[in-house]
């Protein structure tokens, strides 16, 4: 069984995905580590490679969409200590599970990406920080790193170039906040995972106080393609820019969940219409369920209604135009029959649970809005609770050390903006008007036929 692959869009999942796609032999059979060998062998100076990444228009795939090359160029020129690359594999945003697929099915591309990125930024040392619950990814990354060391793709004097690169695979303990780059660094240092106040940014003051670059798995894995094919140009569709738009270059992994026929992870070019993603890749909505709403980029971004959703193309500009954000690419499809109040409550329960508790507005606010939404859902609210909720969410915004507070506030405000009548209905009726046919309204585990799991061949065994 293979996944449908969108015509030509093959940066990360450019192979037939199955249980045998991960080992080194398989990766080498598809051009694996050739890019690194060439780059280190003289194809690129580090500066040239950095420039190539800059030109490629690659933007961080962890959620913020910050230009990757630009971030690397913030590293001090003559650092007093070692530069460290940290790969953020703490993927914990509800609705997001794309990095998992890269690590499980194509781990060597991530490793090769690490080697190339380290080379470009002058680092010899890389950590891959994996979310605690991702035991499978952890085992597979360990296995892959071991293979790479044995085959000389990692270690000292790679390919005789004199360049050393070491990777340490590290497991978190399962905290969303350890995905925030400075929280991750604290955790990596063995401290309580709490974001640091910025500036200084990690590029100046990172792991153990030394310059550090934190990048998402998908960002780093994409570097391999950029180094191989070059940045290219959007106008004549060459290199990495063969795909995507001027401002959103390349391809993007989307992890689709919800009541669709084939939920899963798909790689499509940036700018791909959501309608196509839904109807072609995912096979459309489950029979008898209409699209009600869409969270396009993981739970932290504003929700949009069905009409807006169908107009969105999957890139940074279009999402912003339609009042939401591309985020991490965690596409949560919400079907008719889902109670939006309950859906918001589930989200807020998550943020309440995951707030690290440093800053006042986030620590107190996440719990407060969860309690109010819980009250609305269970029919104990009064009419002005909706405005109160909105006001509190407003107060949490932009006042905190990291953006977790905003990530809780944005969905709250957008749920009210888009589905206010539903909140009012709860209050008027004094109960939830839905019969809650979906016990888990967000259906994060996949509401349709889970393609991966009904194929015994494809069940992942770590």
């Amino acid at each position, binding site marked *: 069984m293979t996944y449908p692959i969108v015509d030509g869009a093959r940066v990360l999942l450019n192979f037939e995905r199955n249980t045998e796609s991960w080992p080194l032999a398989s990766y080498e059979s598809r051009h694996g580590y050739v890019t690194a060998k060439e780059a280190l062998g003289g194809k690129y100076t580090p500066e040239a490679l950095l420039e190539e990444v800059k030109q490629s228009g690659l933007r961080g795939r962890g959620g913020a969409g910050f230009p990757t090359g630009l971030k690397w160029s913030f590293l001090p020129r003559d650092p007093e200590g070692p530069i460290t690359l940290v790969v953020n594999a703490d993927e914990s945003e509800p609705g997001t599970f794309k990095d998992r697929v890269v690590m499980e099915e194509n781990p060597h591309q991530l490793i090769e990406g690490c080697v190339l990125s380290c080379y470009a930024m002058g680092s010899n040392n890389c950590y891959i920080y994996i979310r605690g619950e991702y035991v499978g990814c952890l085992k597979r990354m360990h296995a892959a790193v071991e293979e790479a060391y044995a085959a000389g793709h990692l270690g000292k004097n790679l390919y005789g170039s004199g360049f050393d690169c070491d990777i340490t695979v590290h497991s978190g303990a399962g905290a969303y906040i350890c995905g925030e780059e400075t929280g991750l660094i604290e955790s990596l240092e063995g401290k309580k995972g709490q974001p640091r106040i910025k500036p200084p940014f990690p590029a100046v003051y990172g792991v153990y106080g030394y310059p550090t670059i934190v990048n998402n798995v998908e960002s780093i894995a994409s570097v391999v393609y950029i180094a191989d094919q070059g940045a290219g140009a959007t106008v004549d569709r060459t290199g990495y820019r063969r795909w995507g738009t001027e401002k959103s270059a390349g391809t993007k992994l989307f992890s689709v969940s919800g009541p669709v026929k084939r939920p899963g992870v798909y790689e499509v070019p940036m700018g791909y219409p959501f309608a196509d993603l839904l109807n072609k890749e995912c096979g459309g909505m489950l029979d008898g369920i209409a699209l009600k709403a869409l969270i396009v980029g993981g739970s932290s971004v504003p929700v949009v209604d069905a009409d807006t959703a169908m107009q969105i193309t999957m890139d940074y500009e279009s999402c912003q135009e339609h009042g939401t954000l591309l985020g991490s690419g965690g596409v949560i499809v919400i079907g008719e029959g889902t109670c939006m109040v309950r859906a918001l409550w589930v989200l807020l329960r998550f943020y309440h649970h995951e707030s690290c508790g440093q800053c006042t507005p986030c620590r107190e606010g*996440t719990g407060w809005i969860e309690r109010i939404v819980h009250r609305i859902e269970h029919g104990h609210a009064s009419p002005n609770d909706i405005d109160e909720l909105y006001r509190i969410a407003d107060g949490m915004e932009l*006042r905190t050390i990291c953006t977790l507070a905003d990530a809780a506030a944005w969905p709250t405000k957008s749920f009210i903006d888009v589905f206010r009548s539903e909140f009012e209905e709860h209050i008027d009726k004094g109960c939830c008007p839905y019969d809650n046919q979906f016990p888990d309204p967000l259906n994060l585990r996949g509401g349709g036929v889970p393609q991966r799991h009904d194929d015994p061949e494809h069940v992942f065994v770590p």
Partner: protein
Amino acid sequence: MSDNATSESASEKPEVAVEPTAPVPETVTLSIDGIEVTVPKGTKVIEAAKQAGKVIPHFCYHPGLPVDGNCRMCIADVRTWNPRAEKHMPARRPAVTCWVDAEDNMQVFTDTPEVLKSRATVMEFLLLNHPVDCPICDKAGECMLQDYYMLHDRQRSEVRDEKVHKPRLVPFGDRILYNGERCILCSRCTRFTEHVTGTHELGIVNRGDRAIVEVVEGGDFANAYTDNVADICPVGALTKTDFRFKKRVWFLKHTESVCGGCSRTCNTVVDHDREEIIRIMPRERPGVNDFWICNEGRDLYKELAATERPAAASLAGKDQASAEDVIAWIGEGLAAHKKEGRERLAVIGSSWMSNEEAWLLGHLVGKGVKGQHLAVKTDRVDGYPADDVLHTDDHNPNRLGASASGIAPGKKDGKDLAGILAAAQAGEIDTLIVWGPGLAHDWGGDDAVAEALAKVARVIQLTDAVDAVTPLAHAVIPLRNWAERDGTWTNVDGFHSRFKKALRPPKGAWDGFELLLAIADAGGLKSPAKNLREARKKLKQDPELQAREFLDGRFEFPGNQTGFRHLGGVLET
């Protein structure tokens, strides 16, 4: 030889060359609500604002701790110059002024409507799960949350949900109690144990609104400085077992004082009511104790209360002698020595006497004169061990100041403490003046003291505490202790600190300085100063002390000088 000479001169040269270009501290100039201030580079905006007379409200910021920036109270409108846009631009995320460094050409606005709203919002979040049990909270009256509510919030409570509950009454060691519900998680206390004492006993566990402060597993909160965390706690989450439910703070009178527990002479505030000391709190003094004091210093008032004091002045062979009688007797004795020979007079000063007292006494008996025996004894020997935070190994405050001001052996043939003992034993001393208690520590025990004193014709003790010398002395005059008089001490690093009278002295107890003036008067000796103020002025001008910059410390006697009290951290300016 010549090689040496050249190499020496070569190594000296650069020093000379460097001298004229001594580093000028870099400064930046910015405006705070339109007021221009110039501050050293690296100053935080919140501190720069203080210079403009603006106190930006804050909870987690404390000038004695590294910045953490978690409470978000100090948000202000901070605009930096953007050369491309050619105008001042606010930060996208509002800046916390405790974290942001002051920059040239920065514009800070601390009371725009948005800033005020931001403060009210943060206050609302802080109070959300706060129990607001001020009526039974010891912090009430000096609580930042209370004060700031009145200043910056004043909203009605909108909460109808159950508040978050957390453990209360958790003992942190046996001096501090923690109330998790009152805690606003500002991390001041944990930063204190991390960065001031370096003992790391406290930490914040759990996340979100379940977070609480805890003593590290298997540890105890028992360092010598624990009580400071209760002072810096902006709310009533940490209370001292010693102070709990003893007194509402608004009944307390505050008197600036100095701790005599060791030669650090930490600056303190004595909080008292109805002639009783209720607690001792630290007072900001850069270079001496910064913001902190040790637990021993806080408990010193208990030691004071437990001290046995001489009931009244007494004179051997005379029942019901009045103080005037005793003073006259002493004065005449001193006058006689001036004529007959100073070598048979010895003075044992105290390491607790003030600089002014030491100076005057020194002058009266002939400071620096040939054959003059003046020495400072150790009044107190027990106390906390020395550490590298504050505490020194001398459990007395003013050994250095007393000897520098006047209680030091004469230039020639002057005897020190041991010399005086030997001379007394040999019967070479006629008059011995002992200031304060504790001579037995230095002189080898009570028996040795008794033996030596038996050979001295006139033993005079001026003291605020009874000791082995008191029953043997021919004349005793009770003195006021440090809480009952005014004076200055000079600490181990040469910093002078001034303590003031906090309590009404017991009847018959003399101010040491006044007593010396009276003695001079009675003996017809010329006093170099008529009152304390004049003494302090002359002490400052003393050419000898001036030459030494009074022990290289600051040549000034700060009185009400700093004016800042960092209790909860609210600056009482």
